[in-house]
């Protein structure tokens, strides 16, 4: 057997099902890899070796007993620490939840367990998923396996880096403004944001409820699709979950992998193809488009005039919702409680807890959101941002009259060095310039590696209409067949 950590999830699932290896062996190999490299990468906040091995043993026992298993049974996975895992610490990257052990599993965690996926542990992230670099994690940043001096993207940098460092073949991320796709882009991995409501948010510690979307991270498009198929589907515990059938994303990925895109119309977003992106990023994306044309796709330039207002609208809507969602962290019921010395009032304890428990970016967004929702400012800020959101959705609808998918760079720049954007929040926010429109609209979008710029990975974004997740997987797999899977330098 070749190095188990270098295999794709699809290969591992097949090898386990075929008896060539066991879930326990595969799990051990990944736990060993984590032990060997994670001190340098810091992708994991918590490794649950015991739980993982127990889950792997159950998969092996089930197989021995001849019970039916899915294609990912026995495959290890890393889960972003923003999803609740029963009895396993869940911090959302924040001090305020240090040591909290949820009494329940998120719906998608339950679905992964039922599919036989083996949860290795919880991955690092910007605190409460607010950031694009993991530098806002309360537990130190994650390092990009391509260059340990650079950021792995964020907020889900831990999940993306874990995959790129071969610590896990699969991971779960959550995408509010690009937190799956931008880390995918800068680590040379695949990251997909499903249609909003296509994957359950129950058990996802909310940042911005109307935008948060859990989704798959993987090294190949097919692996992402296989994981997507496990976690997607209606959940009665989430009333924003869509009660519709999940499109067959796995079949779509396999169809795309044949390299035939004849009849597919690609829309190049005019507003996202000019300046703004680093030249190396633009060049790689252009090459990607040319590759897709060679596979038979047609290219049409489309204008989405309101996309330029997406970033400011997002930075009103997301902070507004987060200012309310994060109000519950007050030290009364769980997590950190600061200053409860018997002399302070309840209000003082709540206030001190929040002051000590939250980091600077979280505080900044809570303050922006509190302001934007305040009486007298609501219409000018939150109300106006919602109108922009409607206009952006109309831009998408108009574009999808003409084309099947929209394409753009995933993020304007390759992995940057630590500390280079923390001093100016706006420079950090620009990382999500191209990813935010799909969140505001609700449609699916995926980032696929398209090549390198100065030796660092560049991501290619494919955006599709809501509920047409299969369409983006087809195009993504076709691009992957042309551009190839990136292999990061060994650590």
């Amino acid at each position, binding site marked *: 057997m070749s190095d188990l950590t270098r295999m794709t999830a699809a290969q591992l699932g097949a090898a386990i099902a075929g008896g060539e290896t066991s879930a326990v062996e595969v799990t051990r190999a990944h736990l060993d890899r984590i032990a060997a490299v994670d001190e340098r990468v810091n992708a994991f906040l918590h490794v649950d070796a015991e739980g993982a091995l127990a889950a792997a043993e159950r998969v092996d026992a089930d197989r021995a007993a001849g019970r039916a298993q899915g294609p990912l049974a026995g495959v290890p996975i890393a889960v972003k620490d923003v999803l609740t895992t029963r009895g396993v610490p869940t911090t959302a990257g924040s001090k305020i*939840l240090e040591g909290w052990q949820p009494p329940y599993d998120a719906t998608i965690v339950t679905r992964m367990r039922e599919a036989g996926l083996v949860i290795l542990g919880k991955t690092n992230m910007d605190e409460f998923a607010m950031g694009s670099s993991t530098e806002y994690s309360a537990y130190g940043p994650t390092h990009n396996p391509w260059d340990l001096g650079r950021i792995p993207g964020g907020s889900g940098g831990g999940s993306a880096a874990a995959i790129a460092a071969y610590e896990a073949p699969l991971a779960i991320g959550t995408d509010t403004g690009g937190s799956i796709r931008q880390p995918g882009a800068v680590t040379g991995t695949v990251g997909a944001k499903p249609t909003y409501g296509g994957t359950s948010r129950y058990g996802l510690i909310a940042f911005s409820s109307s935008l948060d979307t859990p989704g798959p991270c993987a090294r190949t498009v097919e692996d992402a699709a296989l994981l997507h198929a496990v976690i997607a589907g209606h959940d009665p515990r989430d*009333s*924003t979950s869509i009660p519709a059938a999940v499109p067959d994303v796995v079949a779509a990925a396999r169809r795309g992998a044949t390299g035939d895109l004849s009849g597919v119309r690609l829309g190049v977003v005019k507003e996202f193809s000019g300046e703004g992106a680093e030249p190396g990023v633009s060049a790689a994306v252009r090459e990607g488009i040319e590759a897709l044309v060679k596979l038979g796709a047609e290219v049409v330039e489309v204008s989405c005039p309101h996309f330029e207002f997406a970033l400011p609208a997002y930075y009103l809507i997301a902070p507004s919702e987060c200012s*309310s969602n994060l109000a519950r962290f007050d030290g009364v019921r769980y997590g950190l409680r600061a200053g409860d010395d018997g002399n302070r009032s309840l209000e003082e304890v709540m206030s001190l807890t929040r002051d000590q428990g939250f980091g600077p970016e979280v505080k900044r967004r809570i303050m922006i959101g*509190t302001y934007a*929702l*305040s009486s007298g400012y609501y219409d000018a800020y*939150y109300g106006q941002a919602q109108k922009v959101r409607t206009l952006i959705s109309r831009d998408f609808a108009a574009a999808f009259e003409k084309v099947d998918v929209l394409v753009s760079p995933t993020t304007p720049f390759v992995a940057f060095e630590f500390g280079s954007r923390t001093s100016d929040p706006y420079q950090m926010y620009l990382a999500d310039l191209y990813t935010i429109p799909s969140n505001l609209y609700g449609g699916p979008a995926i980032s696929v590696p398209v090549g390198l710029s100065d030796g660092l990975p560049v991501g290619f974004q494919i955006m599709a209409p809501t509920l047409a997740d299969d369409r983006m997987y087809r195009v993504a797999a076709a691009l992957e067949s042309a551009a190839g899977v990136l292999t990061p330098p060994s650590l």
Partner: protein
Amino acid sequence: MATYEPVIGLETHVELGTNTKMFCGCPTVFGAEPNTQVCPVCLGLPGSLPVANKAAIEATIRIGLALNCSIATWCRFARKNYFYPDMPKNFQISQYDEPLCVDGYLDVDVDGQTIRVGIERVHLEEDTGKTLHIGGATGRIHGATESLVDYNRAGIPLVEIVTKPVAGTGQLAPAVARAYVTELRDLLRTLDVSDVRMEQGSMRCDVNTSLNKPGEEWGTRTETKNVNSLRSVERAVRSEMLRQASVLDAGGSITQETRHFHEDTGDTTSGRSKETATDYRYFPEPDLVPLAPDPAWVETLKAALPETPRARRARLQQEWRVSDHDLQSIVNAGAVELIEATVAAGATPDAARKWWLGELARRANNDGVELSALAVTPADVAELQQLVDAGKLTDKLARQVLEGTLAGEGSPSAVMAARGVEVVSDTGALTAAVDEAIAANPDVAAKIREGKVAAAGVLVGAVMKATRGQADAKTVRDLIVSRLS
């Protein structure tokens, strides 16, 4: 005082009697051990999400329809943001500018007048937990050494019913307030959507009061909280009218504020001032999809509404042939349902009313309980009356039998059997007793024979004594006269 016109407004919160909470599957039973009816959702644990309870939405729409409101075809929940430890999420899921029901009314009768109280809105929200403050002098959060929170109540569906301002009722305002809350309570009970028990907090009232001089603009209003009985509603309005009048008479002005009503003194005291009003930063609840009740479904609910208590009272008044005044007495005694059921069990309306407003009302009053809490059923009362009508019980004996029923000895016939109580109607035994009395009182007998029938009383008394009161006095008298004529 007479120089001022009051304007009142009422906000009533009603806990719905659904089996499960508003946004999760937890049970809603009152009085369970603290924090035993909770789950990740109603504890607001990170990651949990609400899902709206359809039964609660249905109940709210029915309330709106019964209050003659329009039902929204599309509306949303909103978050009301403020920090308080009994609120697990530090926001309450409520409704803001898009309530489920708007613009209705409820007619109430006060002093022979019908007053139409406008309904501004009816909306749905979740209840908070309950905080118990230990230590400190006031039982309030300030000065407490420890605070304990019970989240069993957190997430119970709560309906808020807000009236439009009620003006022009003058000195009747306190009575109007009480009549409105009473009528609302009866209506909700008829709809079977809540147990509406003010003493348990499943129905709670806030009362707004302001005064103005006739012809002038409405005055500054105060909001009186903690008004937890029908009687308190009336007292709170009256006390606030008197207080405001004396402030205004003295040349002062009214502060817009929250005031607390004190059941023991009947006074209100100042709470927090509303000048620095909390900004609740309402915004549409992004975790819930909008509500869009199907108009056809709303029509179905409307068609199935029960008769309102007021319509029912009008019908019963006709059927029972009672005056406005008598009907009011019945209503005030809380005896409408009891009398109706007693009539249904076979008694005449007059007889049913006589028992419930007479002997039983006295008994309830002595025991300090509601009529409906007495250990006697309408069927018992109907049976008792039938025994009297059949001559098996005299009125006096019937009261003794009723005592037995109230004491838990069983139905009237069971009490009669057990106690051996019955009118002595066996004429043989009675004739013997009469003859004995005549023989023992020859002088009296002679007078009766002479036609002085009034003298028969002495003989009747003697016979009653001999039969230990179990004879019918009129029968005895008739028998004596016939023996001596």
